[in-house]
């Protein structure tokens, strides 16, 4: 981010009632920050500041995206200079307090970003375009005042005062925004269907059941900037003519639920939500506007991310997908016309209305406009949350933003789109990120999870892992998803255990094809994608497992051959004592040997050897 923007941030703190004298210290307390020990750092900061009786204001913020540097602490001085410390621990707080807070000397070796000098981590932000994340990691998510200081609820006011509902929908259509939940359906068109549906009562739903493994975009937005989502929903409700809405959040996100509840209460108090919004203002459509918003927690079911299953869950039932048609736009929640979008989609709306649809459409490609948030996870050097303009390549995201692969290993593939997506090999790193290009690879854009795999990943095992997930999460309604995925999983499991047979690949293709074309809902129809893409790009790995009983990535334990390197072995006997089947023999201080007939590939010897002498093949 540019220094100018940082100035603006500090300005917003002061505008929101901060002091103009002392420093402002901000701790990142998203779930990732808390998981890395953020609360302990905060306690240490409080203690250090109070002990010194410094005129410092301590604040909190959500996730700025640099999860690889958690815990993060920002220090702003009254001139608007910003210093960001990474990997802060309670132990480091003391020196920060002494050197920086007390004496005004920033601790340079711990800085990861600063408005005063360029640092290596700046490249994490250089190619980003932050629309959805514009406030994340900057404002206090529990402060409505800070949200308002950053133009919060101005898009809503603009819509209500100056735009007809049809104009709101037209603006969203003009922006080219497509659903960020995965399928990429044009948002404005969806709204138009809901607006056109017959019926007095209409519902609006926000899908926050972000369940793709490796995806945490929605969590970060809900935790870091809940009002943006609420404002986006309000604008949508005005557009389609809904007066009641639900925000469905997975139960794994308790902090998001808590912050949302607070945001809803604050927004209601301030007159942005509930009855008589904005003081019974007469809107451009000539009537008052009211909107009731409820938060619903899930209870652990991935399939509830599917829109019809989600509605069943809101109604208090088993989250079973329903038949479509009828589509939610005509018959959704309790049989009423319903519009459903995901968190990120709504979070784009206020920006689009304030900056105009053209500003959004100027970003991205012909068919994929705007920016997209991605969660970088797995074997990437800088794991975290990034927002990039559509049209950037996968390679740019992984190398230039993500800093390449961890520990200097080789990039093998990236899993995009979660269990519905697929593995894109390193050779396709030039693929542009837009809905159509990603789909061409066999993966899908999905909600934005990118799990980066390095050379140590076994692609059969990765496919098995994802299938294990979908199989467990299948609701069980339709035959293909309930039984088909189970059979596919069994085949993959036996391949990774060295029991693969000739014909297994063909059977996998056969099953995958049927599950894909004939399952009831999106979960089943996309479940085979991880298998199909790994078969497409890494078929030789499957063949090595089946024919040669060999795992090229040296991952599948059952297929490993353990040998002791006689040059490295000191004859300490640790491995022989650890071996549960007495497969290792040898004299003390002489190199040991493994009897392959007895070895069960448990790996105990590898774990015990202090000389790295046990090698696998």
């Amino acid at each position: 981010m540019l220094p100018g923007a940082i100035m603006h941030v500090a300005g917003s703190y002061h505008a929101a009632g901060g002091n103009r004298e002392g420093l402002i210290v901000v701790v990142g307390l998203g779930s990732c920050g808390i998981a890395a020990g953020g609360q302990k750092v905060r306690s240490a900061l409080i203690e250090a500041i109070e002990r010194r009786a410094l005129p410092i204001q301590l604040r909190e913020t959500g996730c700025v995206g640099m999860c690889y540097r958690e815990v993060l602490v920002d220090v702003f001085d009254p001139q608007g200079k910003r210093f960001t410390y990474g990997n802060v621990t309670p132990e480091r707080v003391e020196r920060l307090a002494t050197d920086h807070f007390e004496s005004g000397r920033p601790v340079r070796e711990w800085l990861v970003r600063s408005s005063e000098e360029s640092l290596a981590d700046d490249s994490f932000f250089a190619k980003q375009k932050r629309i959805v994340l514009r406030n994340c990691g900057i404002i206090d998510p529990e402060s409505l005042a800070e949200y308002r200081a950053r133009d919060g609820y101005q898009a809503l006011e603009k819509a209500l005062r100056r735009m007809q509902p049809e104009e709101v929908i037209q603006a969203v259509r003009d922006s080219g925004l497509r659903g960020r939940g995965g399928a990429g359906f044009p948002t404005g068109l969806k709204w138009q269907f809901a607006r056109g549906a017959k019926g007095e009562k209409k519902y609006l739903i926000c899908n926050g059941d972000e369940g793709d493994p490796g995806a945490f975009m929605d969590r970060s937005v809900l935790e870091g900037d809940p009002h943006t989502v609420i404002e986006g929903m309000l604008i949508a409700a005005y557009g389609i003519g809904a007066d009641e809405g639900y925000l469905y959040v997975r139960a794994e996100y308790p902090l998001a639920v808590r912050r949302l509840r607070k945001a809803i209460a604050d927004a209601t108090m301030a007159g942005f939500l509930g009855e008589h919004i904005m003081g019974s203002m007469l809107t451009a459509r000539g009537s008052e506007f009211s909107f009731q918003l409820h938060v619903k927690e899930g209870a652990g079911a991935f399939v509830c991310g599917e829109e019809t299953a989600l509605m069943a869950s809101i109604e208090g039932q088993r989250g079973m997908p329903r038949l479509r048609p009828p589509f939610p736009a005509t018959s959704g929640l309790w049989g009423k016309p319903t519009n459903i979008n995901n968190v990120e989609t709504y979070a784009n709306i206020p920006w689009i209305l304030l900056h105009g649809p053209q500003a959004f459409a100027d970003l991205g490609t012909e068919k994929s406009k705007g920016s997209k948030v991605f969660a970088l996870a797995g074997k990437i050097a800088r794991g975290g949350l990034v927002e990039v303009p559509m049209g950037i390549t996968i390679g740019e995201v992984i190398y230039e933003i993500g800093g390449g692969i961890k520990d200097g290993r080789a990039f093998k593939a990236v899993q995009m789109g979660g269990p519905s997506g697929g593995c894109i090999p390193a050779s396709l790193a030039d693929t542009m990120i837009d809905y159509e290009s990603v789909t061409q690879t066999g993966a899908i854009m999905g909600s934005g999870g990118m799990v980066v795999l390095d050379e140590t990943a076994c692609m059969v095992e990765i496919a098995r892992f994802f299938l294990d997930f979908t199989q467990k999460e299948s609701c069980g309604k339709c035959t293909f998803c309930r039984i088909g995925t189970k059979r596919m999983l069994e085949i993959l499991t036996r391949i990774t255990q060295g029991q693969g047979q000739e014909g297994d690949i063909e059977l996998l293709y056969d099953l995958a094809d049927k599950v894909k074309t004939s399952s009831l809902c999106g979960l089943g129809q996309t479940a085979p994608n991880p298998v199909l893409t790994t078969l497409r790009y890494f078929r030789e790995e499957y063949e090595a497992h089946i024919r040669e009983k060999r795992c090229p990535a040296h991952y599948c334990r059952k297929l490993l051959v353990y040998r002791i390197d006689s040059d490295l072995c000191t004859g300490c006997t640790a491995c022989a004592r650890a071996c549960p089947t007495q497969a290792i023999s040898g004299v003390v201080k002489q190199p040991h040997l493994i009897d392959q007939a007895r070895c069960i590939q448990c790996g105990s010897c590898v774990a015990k050897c202090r000389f790295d002498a046990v090698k696998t093949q």
Partner: protein
Amino acid sequence: MALVKIKIDGKELEAEEGKTILKVAQANGIEIPTLCDHAALLPFGGCRLCVVQAGPGALKPACATPIASNMEVVTDSSEIREARMMVLQLLFGERNHYCMVCESTGQCELQDLGYKLGLDHFEFFPYEKRFSEDVTHPYILVDQNRCILCRRCVRACADVGGHWVLGVKNRGYESLIDIDMDAPFNDSSCTSCGLCVQVCPTGALVDKRASYLGRKDQADLILSRCDRCPVGCGLEVYRRSNYILKIYGDWNCPTNGGVTCRLSRYAPLYDERPRLSTPKLKEAGVWTPASAEKTARWMAGKLINAEVVVEGSLSNEDLAALKSLFGERVFSLQDVAPPLPATAKLQDLADADTYLVIGVDLNREYGTVGSLIKRRTIPGTAKLILVDDGFNSLAASTDFVFSMEDLDSALAEARKGRKVVIVYSHLRETVAEALRAESQFLRLFLPYESNTLGLAQAGIGPHIAADSERTVFFVGENLRDLKSRVRGATLVALTPFETDEVKAADLIVPIPAVFESEGSFISMDGELLRKERILEPGEGVRSVSAWVALVEAQRLQSVVAKGKQGGSQ
């Protein structure tokens, strides 16, 4: 709905927009295999056997996809055939589908499809998990090993029966049919309506009584009406030689649309009371079998000033015969007149928004009425208000339960409704008075017995218990406390069963049991319904009308004889 043009397998058709592909195909003689689909149930789209190509992209289930203008449907192609075969392979491999050791072999829809689509081997190693059978229910056996999770039973139990006893627990591959909360079937809230068995396509739900006695297609199907209560449900009765295999509700019957209850489907088949097979006369305190002729003569000799008291399940024909013999001295055991005149019919239940049920446990009696109500109130489409003192199992399914004393509050709640139906049978006078004032409510009277209205039409009123020296005839299947009704009189009981209760009489005369006679009766809706004779009664058993004819003949004979005697004097 507008007519639209579509093409199925190249054939141009016109059909109503919004109808499913399956319905349109069936109406035009195009066959699409189905499994989870059932004509009486809402589309489910789970089994995927009926997949067809309709437009680009994934195959679509014909059972659940509505047609649209200019849609082109292909119901058969190599892709479709392969998909269907895979469905069968997956289902056959999921649990125990070894047909040769299944009660349902030969009448199983899964097996039929296997033959039809040419399944000739098991692709996947089948049957890894075993579940123990639930044999606790008196009438129904549950074997989850045979279940294909089509949920027809669950859907029928809920959407048709209105019971919601069956559900699904767990998810995905671990899914199982659930009974209440994992309860043994016999300890559950099951009302034994039997719908689940009727819709199960495999051997997962089996009528215990019918097991191993033959298949449906080896039996005669007789459509009849149930005379166990005045609803008069349409029944499909399956008979093999002189034995009833099973009884199903008749889906096509406008009265019940397939729903029935324990009383029509199971109770009569499990009636263990000893049958009376020959007339017996108490002579000097000893029961002695008597011939038909002797019996008739004995009865004919007691006719002077005699009266007959009947149960309300007697057919119109039997009533007419008795009236010919006894004239005005035919009485009813029970009340006949409603406490309040009825103003509603069963079909009024279909669109009411409030039901005020007073003093009747509709899970135990008039079960079909219960189903028609509960299937709307439990999902919240309509409101059930219950007024009763003491236990009533309906109380579990509604928030609005009031005591008789608190009738006013119940009425206040009911007044919020737009179309309110009061459902009642016997009523206390004060309650009847209070209800009479609510003239805006519709009143659905549940007559006390199947032909109560027939008795009323025939002008038969209730019998008043009194001491008497006259002979009193009782006719019915549940006769009891005869002595307390009349003391000092000679008693005759015409009944199918030789229970201790009827032995209070001086003569007991066998008549047919429920399935052994035909006849007509007047249902609660005032319709003249006919039940068929399904089984042949035993040799000594005669219908009421036949006994009347014999007695009449004896009487004539004795009149003639007396006449002769008189003439000779």
